[in-house]
């Protein structure tokens, strides 16, 4: 599903964010990306959604060489890869349902399909009752669930979560992790960058540890620290 072959990313100031990274992620995988701040987790995520292009090496997502993809096709890649961020990135003047429907609307869907898919995504994240609330009226966990619903509404094959529990209390964080686990069980490949050792250690999923831009550990049922 995702393959990185000998990928390096060097920024114009000369620093390497990633160095010689080789990584295979199969369809349906649940992978934790761990490492200290500046280790290269966010850069790796940005390469997967073509917000950045690798300096050397090849990044393949769902069979497509992302680095060589013309700009005119990038939006098609992003429809296959849902993204969730630590800061939710919701539109404050739109309701929960409008925020979710927005992802369908701007990708060319209309009418009944938008209503049905929005309702399905809201039901999946348990926010049907809050559909007409604005983000400012929601708790942090509910806002993140809205963001997850928006990321899933286009039925992406891959979901990338960049520190999705970073702004949440421990109880709410577990709610979000349970939700993401369910999403993965339904067939979506999940890549999650996190600093939350408790969650990583409890789930015992695949762990890829980055340090100074290099993969220093890749374990099938790993822990947060070696």
């Amino acid at each position, binding site marked *: 599903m995702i393959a990185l072959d000998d990928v390096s990313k060097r920024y114009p100031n000369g620093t390497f964010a990633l160095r010689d990274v080789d990584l295979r992620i199969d369809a349906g995988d649940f992978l934790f990306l761990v490492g200290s701040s500046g280790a290269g987790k966010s850069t790796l995520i940005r390469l997967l959604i073509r917000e950045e292009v690798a300096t050397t090496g090849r990044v393949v997502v769902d069979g497509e060489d992302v680095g060589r993809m013309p700009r005119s096709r990038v939006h098609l890649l992003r*429809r296959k890869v*849902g993204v969730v961020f630590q800061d939710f*990135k919701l539109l404050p003047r739109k309701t929960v349902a409008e925020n979710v429907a927005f*992802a369908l*609307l*701007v*990708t060319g869907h209309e009418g009944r399909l938008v209503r049905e898919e929005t309702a399905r995504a809201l039901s999946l994240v348990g926010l049907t009752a809050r559909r007409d609330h604005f983000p400012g009226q929601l708790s942090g966990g509910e806002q993140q669930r809205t963001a997850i619903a928006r990321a899933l509404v286009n039925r992406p094959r891959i979901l990338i979560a960049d520190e999705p529990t970073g702004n949440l209390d421990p109880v709410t964080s577990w709610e979000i992790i349970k939700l993401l686990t369910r999403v993965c069980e339904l067939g979506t490949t999940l890549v999650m960058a996190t600093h939350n050792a408790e969650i990583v250690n409890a789930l015992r999923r695949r762990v890829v540890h980055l340090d100074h831009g290099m993969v220093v550990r890749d374990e099938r049922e790993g822990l947060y620290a070696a």
Partner: protein
Amino acid sequence: MRRVGYVLGAAGQGFWRNPVMSLASTFTVTLMLLLFSFFLTTDRGLQAAVGVLESKVEIAIFLDDDAKVSQIIALKARVEANPAVSRAEYITKDQALQRLRDVADRRKDFVIADVDSNLLPASLEIKLADPRQAKQLGDDLRAEIGGGVVADVIDNPQVVDQLLTITRVLSIGGIAILAMMLFVALFVIVNTIRIAVHARRDEIEIMQLVGASDAFVRWPFILEGMLVGALGAVFALSVVFAASGPVTGAMLDFLVTLPISLGPDFAFQLAASVLSVALLVGAGGATLSVRAHLAK
């Protein structure tokens, strides 16, 4: 339908989200279009004036009294064959005298002393298709003086030259001023849309993340730019048409010798040109602005 609704709604919201900037750029576009209208109208008026004056530009060949008809016909044919000449008219001695009488009838201070012996020569009056060739043609014909057909050549290349210089200067000056105004209007629209883009940067970021195409992101801003342009065109055309009556009257009083008035065909052309320029400038400025943002 909802997509179209979204794009139109976003364009309208963008315009009214920052009304001061939107109205300022509309005002600038209005000024630019007023200048454009003025230039277009003046240019069209000048073209008409030049046309009238150019049609009067002539070279007169005074013919020798002893020249044979066949020689005159040959000369006329030769002159007419020149591509710079639109037509050549043969004026007999009698016609020349009749013209003089007509002039005398209109002017009380003008008296023709001796009408029995007609001293006026027959002539070929040449109207030029290309006034710039007047001097060359005059010189060529002057070389034939003394050959038994051409007695003298009267031309006025200096007037032609001056007229063409004025037209050229006005054209170049007008285009230069218009180019500057176009640049200013474009600059203001680029900045207005840049502010609109900045105000909606979060929305744009999310749109791009969830897979909206660049075209979909771009359209509301392009429409907003076109809205600014269209409003500017409406204001400018309102001013132009409100002022056209009194201004035309004043111009006709001023230019008694050139009774030129611009009709409804021109009004339609003007409106179409102004609206086209306004929409192009609006869309162009917005495209530049939003493209710069998306390329980041």
